[in-house]
């Protein structure tokens, strides 16, 4: 897995649709793999390809004007199922950052666990980002994790974003939750011994 993340300047792919659920990000019929690789091919499968597996020209991932490591999406991105395959598909396709004005909880966690940075911005800033990309498909966004800001390079508009300090450290240093939990082994055993109801 490609670990750690600090700073990025990239063009972005706009997807101004609200409530994009994980069934759209990766439809259930592609969840049959037993490894984490290769999901990128089926990212947004049913929006991207028609029934004959031909690319749909009007979908943004098939539009050669738009590319980059940042996906910009409408409100409530990643709602629905807990499938981490959604995060794997996004990472495997090559996105490192997803920008939206609201993220579903489980998706946010799954994204962070896969070193994808979900950036929650205000509705207003999200609109500015969409407008900037509409005006120029090559508009660049700058993301700085250390300083916690995202900037539209052309206009200079920028906004700070929140990320919890623990997750920030994980992203910057490239370590994950299991590393931390495994280090707590003694405390866990002590807890178990002290519990009256250890079902």
């Amino acid at each position, binding site marked *: 897995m490609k670990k750690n993340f600090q700073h990025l300047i990239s063009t972005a792919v706009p997807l101004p649709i609200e*409530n994009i659920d994980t069934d759209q990000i990766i439809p259930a019929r592609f969840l049959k793999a037993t490894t984490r690789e290769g999901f990128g091919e089926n990212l947004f499968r*049913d929006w991207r390809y028609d029934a004959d597996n031909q690319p749909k020209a009007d979908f943004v991932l098939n539009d050669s004007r738009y590319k980059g490591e940042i996906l910009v999406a409408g409100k*409530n991105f990643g709602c629905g199922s807990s499938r981490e395959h959604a995060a794997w598909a996004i990472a495997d396709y090559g996105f490192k950052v997803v920008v939206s004005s609201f993220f579903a909880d489980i998706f946010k*966690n799954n994204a962070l666990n896969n070193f994808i940075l979900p950036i929650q911005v205000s509705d207003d800033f999200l609109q500015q980002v969409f407008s900037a990309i509409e005006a120029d498909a090559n508009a660049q966004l700058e993301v700085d994790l250390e300083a916690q800001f995202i900037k539209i390079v052309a206009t200079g508009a920028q906004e700070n974003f929140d990320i919890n300090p623990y997750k920030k450290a994980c992203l910057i240093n490239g370590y994950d939750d299991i590393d931390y939990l495994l280090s707590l082994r003694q405390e866990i055993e002590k807890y178990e011994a002290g519990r009256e109801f250890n079902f």
Partner: protein
Amino acid sequence: MKRTLVDKIWDSHVVVSKSGFPDALYINTHFIHEVTSPQAFDGLRKRGIPVFRPRKTRATADHNVPTIDQHLPIKEALSRHQVEMLTKNTAEFGVELYGLGHPYQGIVHVIGPELGITLPGMTIVCGDSHTSTHGAFGAMAFGIGTSEVEQVLATQCILQYRPKRMKIEINGQLKKGVVSKDIILYIISKISASGATGYFVEYCGEAIRSLSMEARMTICNMSIEMGARGGLIAPDETTFAYIKGREFAPKGADWEKALAYWKTLYSDADAQFDKTLRFDAADIEPMITYGTNPGMGMGITQHIPALEQVEDKERPSFKKSLDYMALEPGSALLGRPVDYVFIGSCTNSRIEDLRMVADFVKGKRKADNVVVWIVPGSKQVEAQAKKEGIDKVFEAAGFQLREPGCSACLGMNEDKVPAGMYCISTSNRNFEGRQGPNARTFLASPLTAAAAAITGKVADVRELV
């Protein structure tokens, strides 16, 4: 200090709480299934570590399995491979498996409660968002991703931040023909598909108290559809009576001890919630969804909002959704023909759901234009239905009683609704393509689904009982 039920359960499960870090929370019960676990076992292999507490994890095969001829090998190669991997992984790591052919096999959220594995006061996780179902017992249950499945396998703990708490109170009494599924579809239609994001919801009030455990599970099941981390209901006599005597429930002195503890599991009077919502059960009519997220629901006699009623910035998503459904803004659904009826999923596939449907259809026959699939939640539900003669009622009505699994809830097996067709479904998600590419889903209660099966269209069950 006055505490909510969520806080009581949380506090008693914190293993380590360090400032700047999420809490390490101990997990009592972990359920796994074939779709979200293979990569987690792989992770353990890569790290060279065992499952830390194998007896606290239980496995079943449900998402992918066919619902006819389960005794034969699975035809579809990828599904077969995934189910085989589960068998191999659970054997290698010493985890109990209720796989195909096992009398306990079924949808993970149906078997936990019916086997008495799900108990009040527990922390329960599963790599599946509808884990919230188990909250009906006064447990803190929530869905996790595969990386977290790996964490639990490796350490029996998970890293979490304490959620905000929301109280949803449903007062008054339900009217005839209105059931628990309608309550939850109503709440979601009022607060939207993201209205409870970041919260853990406690449901309470007279209307909730008077529900059976099955009906409570239906409500908690769909908590995730409004974005909530989970939903729970404080345990009471109904809960205890349901658990008593079940396979893995505590027995004898253990039962008494457990019961005494369970009786302490409620939110203290005046405990602080971050948000409180109140609804009146009498305002709820049978519900149906018209769009492509569960928040797009309405009373069955109502009309889909007209474009002007939708906020400007929400119009593109609204239109996209109705285009997918091939429905006109402002139109009614009542009387619209449907092609498929699916009664199943972890929302509504328990014995009580099947009984409710059987009671209604007894002596009636399905309309010619519909295909009706009834998929029981578990082997035990299936056996009980047969024992009660419910299978005969369905057969006489022209319904197919199939074998247990997730089935058309997410269409990972062969049970897919064909493109362009309308399905009235008792499941929990009406997302684009959820029941098959380009399939169109109306979510409703088992009663409303049964009414559609008999009439061949969207019907008001109150006029048929």
